[in-house]
């Protein structure tokens, strides 16, 4: 496909050993790593442990994406260039992090804030500086939202950090709740979209459950239920009036459990809102209007084969070409290739979904062929 491509969900893995190297000495000592041998890292980790309470018997990564140096998939910028960026002529990838997505589950908020700064600085030095096509997310630990807002402002002058990205919820409220207002405001003031990646709700150390009726015990439940958390975050942003308070703020939902659920979900919210708006009189628009104006949805996993499928036609009727953004989810096991996804979209969606919507949202200068 001769289209520019912006890939909005790519997982780079920031190694613990690199994070430890960037921590202040006192916190390295706190980890038992003061002697620089990092011997104790496996027991005193910078990332929350026990986070995955279910096992995918095939693992979580593409087997062909494991670097030759033995590191985890996504840990090599060179391999990412070789497997994703060069062969598909990708113009920009938005790096969303790996284990760094879950730092809000660390129980020690002071340590979490230090780890967050280190993760973001490693990303800046070892990824964003390597190739201009790498664009970064500002990872956050939101145990103390005001500290997270400070971290956004610390990095706001660097245009290579194009959004913030969260996954884990430590306050038992979805991310539109006013407890997170300091983060909403910092995003709005610095022009950074607020991205939420699924599958971090309810992990160990979080104060939410992954699915509405409790935490799953099997990976099939965990992965298949990703949409529940996404629905909760979307409703929370709409009905708490985040988009009234910050009309230009964008919420980006990543790996949202497919996209086929969106039309029936919005139909329900619109129908309900007509009878319930007295509860939330600050909401001046219909839920589906907020969705189109303020929310962007990453395509992966794109479960559809052709534009004539009823769920795709329902999305088309909603104007999905204006709110979908392409994503591959490289290097995870269920990755979508750019050519496959873009070639099965309705033709009139392709240009916007491949690059225009993302370029506009992230203020990226993507050259478009004449």
């Amino acid at each position, binding site marked *: 496909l001769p289209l520019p491509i912006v890939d909005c969900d790519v997982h780079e893995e920031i190694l613990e050993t690199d994070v430890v190297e960037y921590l202040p000495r006192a916190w390295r000592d706190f980890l038992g790593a003061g002697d620089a041998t990092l011997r104790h890292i496996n027991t005193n980790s910078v990332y929350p442990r026990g986070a995955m309470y279910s096992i995918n018997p095939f693992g979580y990564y593409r087997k062909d994406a494991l670097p030759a140096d033995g590191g985890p998939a996504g840990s090599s910028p060179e391999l990412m260039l070789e497997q994703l960026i060069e062969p598909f002529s990708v113009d920009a990838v938005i790096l969303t992090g790996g284990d760094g997505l879950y730092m809000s589950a660390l129980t020690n908020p002071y340590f979490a804030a230090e780890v967050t700064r280190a993760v973001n600085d490693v990303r800046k030095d070892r990824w964003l500086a390597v190739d201009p096509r790498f664009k970064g997310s500002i990872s956050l630990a939101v145990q103390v939202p005001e500290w997270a807002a400070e971290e956004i402002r610390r990095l706001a002058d660097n245009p290579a950090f194009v959004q913030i990205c969260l996954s884990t919820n430590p306050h038992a409220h979805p991310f539109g709740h006013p407890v997170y207002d300091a983060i909403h405001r910092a995003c709005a003031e610095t022009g950074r979209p607020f991205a939420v990646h699924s599958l971090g709700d309810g992990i160990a150390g979080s104060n939410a459950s992954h699915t509405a009726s409790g935490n799953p015990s099997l990976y099939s439940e965990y992965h298949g239920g990703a949409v529940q958390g996404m629905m909760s975050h979307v409703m929370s942003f709409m009905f708490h009036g*985040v988009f009234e308070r910050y009309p230009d703020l964008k919420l980006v939902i990543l790996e949202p459990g497919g996209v086929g659920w969106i039309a029936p979900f919005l139909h329900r919210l619109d129908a309900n809102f*007509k*009878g319930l708006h007295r509860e939330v009189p*600050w909401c001046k628009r219909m839920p589906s209007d907020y969705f189109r104006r303020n929310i962007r949805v990453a395509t992966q996993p794109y479960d559809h084969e052709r534009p004539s499928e009823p769920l795709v036609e329902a999305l088309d009727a909603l104007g999905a070409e204006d709110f979908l953004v392409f994503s591959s989810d490289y290097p995870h096991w269920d990755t979508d290739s750019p050519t496959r996804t873009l070639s099965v979209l309705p033709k009139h969606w392709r240009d916007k979904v491949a690059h225009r919507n993302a370029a506009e949202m992230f203020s990226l200068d993507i050259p478009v062929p004449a």
Partner: protein
Amino acid sequence: MDAQTAHPAPEPIGACRLDELEEGRPRCIRLPNGRQVALVRAGASVRAFSMRCPHRGGPLYKGRICYGLRSDSPGDMTLDESRMVINCPWHNWEFSLCSGESKFDPAKRIAVYPTDVVDGVVRVHYGAGRPTPRTPVVQS
């Protein structure tokens, strides 16, 4: 006669005595022309409107009369005493008693009729209102 095509004469029709109406509490009244309307007293004046909701046909005359709400920011709400509304008892749809409009679905509206009170008798200018479709059309 079909309510959607009817063009009754706009002469006022006596409906009931003012003192038969309770403040803020709607009643369904059958007019001498056979039509039914909801009437509610607001001080010395009376509002007349469709008795059925255009959403799902709920009995508007059993709904709640209240003021509209204003809000300038999340968490803020103030009663708008310049705007009186009826909330349908089924699904809570809300219609202005001035314009008949639904706030979030302009395609759905109720008929509202001018009234006056002469010698203690409430008169409804029935033909001056916009009729409500007899068969509700459900469309979100």
